């Protein structure tokens, strides 16, 4: 790693080595190594007080002529500068210590660079090392747990999925919360998968307004800056190869569902029995026995036992009787759908250059197969990065990356035909493979082997759940794959006009085409209706970004000043088309000509938006102690109709206290910086749907009806919609205590007003939502990042890093209700949350679950009422409260009491005192080295939040017969007989439809701790490498997603923004890889 930094220093090599003359000069030699004992090339070795010096070679060796009274100064970026008196020594070996705060490290921020010391905002650069060890196809997933205040949501284990990233809480109600990616200085709207993490040199996260305001409208939700690798400009050509291979598997547990048919079938029987009791049937046992094996419950053909219902179930114990035998053993979907798969990745990188030109090029290959059958991601990437000082006054650069990828996502249809849905929710009495009437497997005349069970279509029997579908059959016989060609790059030229003044221009572009093919086979499942069909969609995106920038930079004694002014335009254009054809000639050719019938008219359209900006920035520095920065930016967006332009800006300052005389040479406070900033940023709304580009317009769908044009209303727009504005104040401190502890703490308050707000309307108006700019939201947060150097000896090092965020969110002002002219009291459009003044946008507002009636087993909720006559009971004269918040607003003196109700609709909607926002969340990294062995573990944690576990809710649902789904094993706690005290209602064949309706019943803590990554590596020592020609060899074993502890197995709060596991979740892969990294 360190060696790569040598490139930066090559510029300094132009120093002419002069041999100073003095009495008694002698030749001093030595080796400079880092604190891990690795040689450091390119270290400056100077005679103190002169410009005379040399540099170490690639082995870290130097030779210099010096007098005994000379002092040698060893300096190297990122390391503490060290002085040595020559004296009598002829050999001086030096170990340079890492500069604890890495103060001089250059960080790329905004439209320029700053050193870490001078930067007034908060920018966190993540060690490439920490990201590289994680086996992900893109950088977004690897960011988990690395930076305080950055929440990485791994929404799917499907290889090649990009994570959702949230920086500093929830900036908007209905606007955008996505951060801006900037790659090599160009705003990036391509797929993050198109950038091979192995090509990334640094990843920096900007969080506060000083850092993000310069990006104006697009920086409001934080900025992720990615810089790709470059060649070095002086002769040090290198080859790096890394290869790793490993296994993807499902180690994170799924929901604990019933797997035994004998455990499941009595529950169905009991549901029928209870329904019979509720409906006052004469003989509920006979009713259950008669109906258990019937079309609407379990069709007789799915009775897998040598027994009738009466012979099977003992009505007393409600269990399967002893001695009942099976006709066959049904397979489980989970067992056949999931298996370990191989992941292989190889990257090779070349770089180098001379004093004028540098180059970097790479090739990467990734083969990443998921644990679910026929899912995976293959990718080839290449990058070429060249820059050249063509003339003294002009430097030209070009950086082009290309990625080709194929992803296969079979078996994940959004619908019933989904392997993940079946794995958890298909009752264990239903086999994967079809059985004939004797229980034998049925040969498949089409594909060979045995037929999958598609239910009724087989001609044997209909299945009361997802009849005519089988996701494993679909995963094998159908096809859902996407091929992507993705290009991204930029061309830049910098013209030096005078020494102080430069003109910089960059043209950046991202272009990609995606083609998805979705084939459904003609023999089994849904494709039988179309004779086999192929749905194809194609998407083409072009993003163009032009930047022209004038920069003035000068020093005036102790003052230094940088001023820039710029113009930038960004245009995003996306085209899509679809074709759907049926009647396949060959079932193996997934090309349109192989399908001979049109199933829908082809579709196609282009959409997009344009942004134009002018901006400027001033950076001022006095004595390296006081830093000031200010920026202003004006943005225009095509997404707004009447009011396109907004003005944004920021000011910030930093004071490096430790550079003051009174702290110089202080042993304890080795570094201390205070900083504060204030800024205004804008947001133009999200890009979730096609309609979002045109929210300002009333829009209409086009169609053909009765042979003519048909134009039907689509969305109602708001032409006055304009920028949402955030005002963020931040203050923070960065410090180092001795050599033991580094840390930083930031506190911010972010007020967002003119919120882009989807205001609900009483639907009788003919519309449901109007998007307006109204209301105000406040986010406050405290972020900390502490690194302790527990051991720091040459042989053994141990560092512990803890980061986290504590955040709070509150609606300060609600939008106006136009029919009353007053601010809205309550908006429930984001159920189970609600919006109202003084509340967080993620406070739960729902009905309160009150458990189960011990007498009947029926579900209960709380109904609140205004006890007007104050007698403690709900009776005549009292008012039932439907919605608590509006009621209390109208009746602040209400005497609120509650009682239990068995009618869901009568229960009261109210704030239940829990929030989806955790008290604290973040990451922990423990890492270090022992001799040549390095190791690290990275954990992420979250405490204090809640979510509704909908998937658990589905598994606890009482549905009709066996049609619904499998159960979670918690169903064993259900109410069974009068007097049972439990929190799980009776099973009654779907009688209690509202038992799983929205309430606090499934509200679950989102506390979690996960072992996100663990790594052990070994660096082969130079002694062993000897003359092999290898400079560096490191072998390692790394594991991702090794362990997760949550409130319930299968419940993975980290897979969605609000903390609930989604339906059909492809739970994150556990990946264990072994690899080797070699440098020539």
């Amino acid at each position, binding site marked *: 790693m360190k060696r790569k930094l040598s490139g930066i220093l090559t510029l300094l090599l132009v120093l002419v080595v002069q041999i100073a003359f003095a009495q008694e000069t002698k030749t001093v030699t030595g080796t400079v190594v880092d604190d891990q004992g690795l040689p450091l090339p390119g270290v400056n070795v100077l005679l103190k007080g002169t410009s005379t010096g040399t540099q170490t070679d690639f082995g870290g060796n130097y030779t210099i002529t010096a007098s005994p009274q000379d002092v040698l100064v060893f300096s190297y970026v990122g390391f503490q500068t060290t002085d040595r008196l020559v004296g009598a020594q002829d050999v001086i070996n030096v170990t340079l210590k890492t500069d604890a705060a890495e103060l001089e490290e250059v960080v790329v921020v905004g439209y320029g660079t700053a050193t870490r010391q001078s930067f007034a905002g908060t920018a966190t650069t993540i060690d490439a090392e920490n990201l590289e060890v994680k086996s992900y196809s893109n950088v977004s997933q690897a960011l988990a747990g690395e930076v305080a205040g950055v929440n990485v949501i791994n929404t799917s284990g499907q290889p090649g999925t990009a994570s959702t990233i949230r920086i500093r809480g929830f900036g908007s109600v209905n606007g955008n919360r996505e951060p801006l990616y900037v790659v090599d200085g160009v705003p990036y709207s391509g797929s993050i998968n198109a950038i091979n993490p192995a090509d990334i040199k640094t990843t920096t996260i900007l969080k506060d307004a000083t850092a993000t305001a310069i990006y104006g409208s697009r920086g409001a939700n934080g900025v992720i800056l990615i810089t790709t690798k470059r060649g070095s400009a002086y002769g040090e050509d290198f080859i790096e190869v890394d290869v790793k291979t490993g296994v993807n598997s499902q180690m994170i547990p799924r929901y604990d569902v019933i797997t035994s048919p004998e455990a499941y079938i009595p529950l169905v029987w009991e549901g029928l029995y209870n329904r019979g009791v509720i409906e006052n049937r004469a003989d509920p046992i006979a009713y259950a026995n008669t109906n258990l094996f019937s*079309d*609407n419950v379990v069709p007789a053909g799915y009775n897998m036992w040598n027994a009738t219902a009466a012979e099977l179930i003992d009505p007393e114990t409600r269990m399967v009787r002893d001695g009942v035998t099976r006709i066959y053993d049904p397979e489980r979907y989970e067992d056949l759908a999931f298996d370990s798969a191989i992941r292989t990745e190889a990257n090779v990188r070349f770089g180098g250059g001379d004093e004028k030109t540098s180059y970097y090029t790479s090739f990467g290959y990734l083969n990443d197969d998921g644990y679910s059958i026929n899912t995976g991601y293959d990718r080839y990437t290449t990058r070429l990065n060249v820059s050249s000082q063509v003339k003294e006054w002009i430097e030209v650069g070009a950086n082009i990356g290309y990625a080709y990828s194929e992803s296969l996502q079979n078996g994940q249809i959004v619908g019933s035909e989904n392997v993940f849905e079946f794995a958890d929710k298909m009752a264990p009495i239903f086999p994967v493979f079809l059985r004939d009437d004797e229980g034998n497997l049925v040969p498949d005349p089409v594909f060979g082997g045995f037929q999958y069970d598609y*239910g009724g279509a087989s001609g044997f029997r*209909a*299945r*009361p759940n*997802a*009849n*005519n579908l089988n996701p494993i059959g679909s995963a094998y016989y159908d096809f859902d794959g996407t091929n992507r060609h993705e290009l991204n790059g930029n061309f830049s030229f910098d013209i030096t*006009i005078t020494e102080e003044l430069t*003109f910089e*221009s960059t043209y950046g572009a991202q272009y990609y085409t995606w083609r998805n093919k979705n084939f459904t086979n003609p023999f089994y499942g849904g494709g039988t*209706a*179309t004779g086999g069909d192929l749905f194809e969609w194609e998407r083409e995106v072009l993003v163009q970004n*032009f930047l*022209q920038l004038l920069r003035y930079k000068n020093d005036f004694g102790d003052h230094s000043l940088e001023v820039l002014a710029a*113009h930038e*335009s960004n245009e995003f254009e996306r085209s899509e088309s679809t074709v759907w054809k049926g009647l396949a000639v060959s079932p193996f050719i997934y090309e349109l000509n192989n399908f001979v019938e049109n*199933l*829908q*008219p082809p579709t196609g359209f282009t*959409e997009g938006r*344009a942004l134009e900006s002018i901006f400027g920035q001033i950076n001022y520095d006095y004595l390296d102690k006081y830093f000031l920065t200010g920026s202003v930016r004006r943005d*225009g967006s*095509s997404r707004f109709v009447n009011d396109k332009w907004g003005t944004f800006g920021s000011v910030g300052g930093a004071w490096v206290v430790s550079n003051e005389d009174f702290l110089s040479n202080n042993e304890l406070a080795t570094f201390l910086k205070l900083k504060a900033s204030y800024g205004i940023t804008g947001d133009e709304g999200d890009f979730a749907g*096609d*309609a979002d580009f*045109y929210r300002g*317009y*009333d829009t*209409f*769908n086009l*169609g*053909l*009806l*009765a*042979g*003519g*044009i*048909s134009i*039907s*209303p*689509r969305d109602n727009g708001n032409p006055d919609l304009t920028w949402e504005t955030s005002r963020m104040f931040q203050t923070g401190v960065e410090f180092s205590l001795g050599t033991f502890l580094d840390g930083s703490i930031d506190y911010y308050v972010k007020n967002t007003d003119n919120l882009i707000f989807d205001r*609900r*309307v009483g*639907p*009788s*108006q*003919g*519309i*449901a939502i109007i998007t307006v700019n109204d209301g105000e939201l406040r986010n406050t947060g405290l972020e900390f990042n502490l690194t302790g150097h527990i051991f720091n000896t040459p042989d053994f090092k141990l560092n512990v890093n803890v980061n986290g965020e504590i955040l709070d969110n509150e609606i300060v002002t609600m939008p106006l209700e*136009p*029919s*009353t002219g007053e601010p809205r009291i309550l908006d429930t459009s984001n159920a189970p949350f609600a919006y109202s003044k003084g509340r967080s946008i993620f406070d739960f507002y729902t009905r309160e679950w009150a458990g189960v009636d011990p007498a009947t087993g029926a579900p209960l909720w709380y109904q609140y009422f205004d006890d007007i006559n104050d007698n403690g009971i709900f009776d005549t004269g009292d008012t039932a409260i*439907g*919605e608590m918040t509006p009621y209390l607003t109208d009746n602040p003196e209400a005497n609120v009491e509650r009682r239990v109700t068995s009618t869901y609709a009568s229960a009261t909607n109210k704030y239940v005192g829990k929030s989806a926002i955790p008290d604290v969340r973040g990451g922990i990294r423990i890492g270090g080295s022992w001799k040549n062995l390095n190791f690290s573990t990275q954990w992420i944690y979250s405490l204090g939040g809640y979510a509704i576990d909908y998937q658990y809710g589905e598994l606890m649902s009482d549905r*009709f017969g066996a049609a*619904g789904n499998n159960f979670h094993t918690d169903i064993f706690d259900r109410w069974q007989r009068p007097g049972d005290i439990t929190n799980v209602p009776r099973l009654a064949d*779907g009688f209690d439809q509202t038992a799983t309706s*929205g309430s606090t019943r499934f509200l679950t803590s989102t506390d979690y701790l996960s072992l996100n990554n663990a790594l052990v590596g070994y660096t082969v020592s130079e002694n062993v490498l000897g003359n092999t020609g290898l400079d560096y060899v490191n072998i390692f074993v790394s594991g991702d997603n090794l362990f997760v502890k949550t409130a319930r197995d299968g419940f993975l709060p980290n897979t969605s923004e609000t903390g609930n596991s989604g339906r059909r979740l492809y739970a994150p892969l556990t990946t264990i890889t072994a690899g080797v990294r070699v440098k020539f």
Partner: protein
Amino acid sequence: MKNLLKLTGAAALLFLGTSCSEEFLEKEPTEFLTTDQIAEAAELNPAVVRGTLTGIYSLMIETGTGGTTNHDDFGQKGYDIYGDMLSGDMALSVSTYGWYRADITEFVAPTDFTRQRNYMVWRYYYRIIRSTNTVIDALGGNDAVPELEENKYIMGQAKAIRAHSYFYLTQYFTEDYDPAAEILPIYDDLQDQNGPKVATSEIFNLIESDLNDAITLLDGFNRTGKNEVNKYVAQGILAYVKGYKQEWQAVYDLTQSVITEGGFQIMTAEEVVRMRHDGPDTTPYGGGFNDLSTPGWMWGIDLTTDTGLGLVSWWGQVDYFSYSYAAVGDSKAIDSGLYDQIPADDVRKNQFRVAPGTSTHLMPINKFFAPERVPFGQNPMVTDYVFMRVAEMYLLHAEAAAQLGRYDEARDALDELLSKRLADSSSYLAGISDEGLLDEIYLQTRIELWGEGKSYLALKRFRETVVRGDNHLSFVGVPIPYNDDRLTFEIPESEIQNNPFIDSQND
């Protein structure tokens, strides 16, 4: 140095020039169009103007118009199924995927305002109302009488559809006709904001004035397709409205006008059922209820591949021969009690499959079917939707005549229909007493119009009682009167929460 500055300046201008124009920040959609884009197109293409009206008919069959992605959310025909099931005539006899189960068939939605099905019905009809208000507004408002013939016809259709939607809202959201009861918010202007419920009489005033206007405006309108409401369809809608209000003379006159002037023919036996062949070629023939051009159909929609309907459609729910839920375990069958009442020699008895013990028992496989008759076959849906038939006019006419005591006229009107269904309709009708005639007309209405969304209207108009047969999954044999709370939907939670002027259900 000078050259350098020139170069820089030129480069800067070059790049600035690429974006600094007014148009750069103007972007318009192409997937769908904005009002301005449509106006611009309309200047050159008059078909675009009519397209905005046709769009209302599109909305009537579009999926998701109830504001959800549910597979029973596909416009008017979706709510026709709700009505058929609430009235008990359509039984969900086998349920696998769960659509309609509980919420409709066990009356969970009609008794719980938090259920989404309430929202869907409400959202859909008020969405249609808003789209008609848009058209009426563009033509000058409620009181305007457009000068251009073409615009007069557009205005007439928009008003008729607005009335149609308000009428269905009164049916689905009120238990009985009570002129004084405040039942629904009213919007007859595009600018109207959320408002309070107004009296039934006010709603019906609007409905009737809209329909009367429509009948006048549409006089002379020679429609280009049967998707469009013409004078006779408007009269038909008004006949239903008047029938609900028990104003029988008006029903009598309106239906008489449609029957004598409309030029429609009652569907023949061959058209209403797939016939068994008696000749040497035994291939069955006829039937299908799938073609808008059938002379007995007054109003409907011609579905084509371009309409783009698939599984989420009426056919996708009901037809065994389509890519449908009906084919994979959600059986929609005729109520067994109603089936038993169909006379044995009635051709309509053959509309339903008899196969006791199977999931297809009493399914309408010979009334509604895709012509290829491949089980689970048709996709996309190109068989048509029926909204109104002339048979309804004969039945309404018979009903009105009987209500007015003109029994012979009632029998004559009924015979016009039954002579095409029964071998000897005259003797059949002769056996029915004057007192029994209304019951017979109710029965014939249910049999003739089974699955067409009209049973629910008849139930309320005849003020009858639902008694479900034994092929229903629940409430078998339980009498439920027409004005039972379980037969009407609740004002949805979203309206109560978001309209500050509505905080109560209808009684």
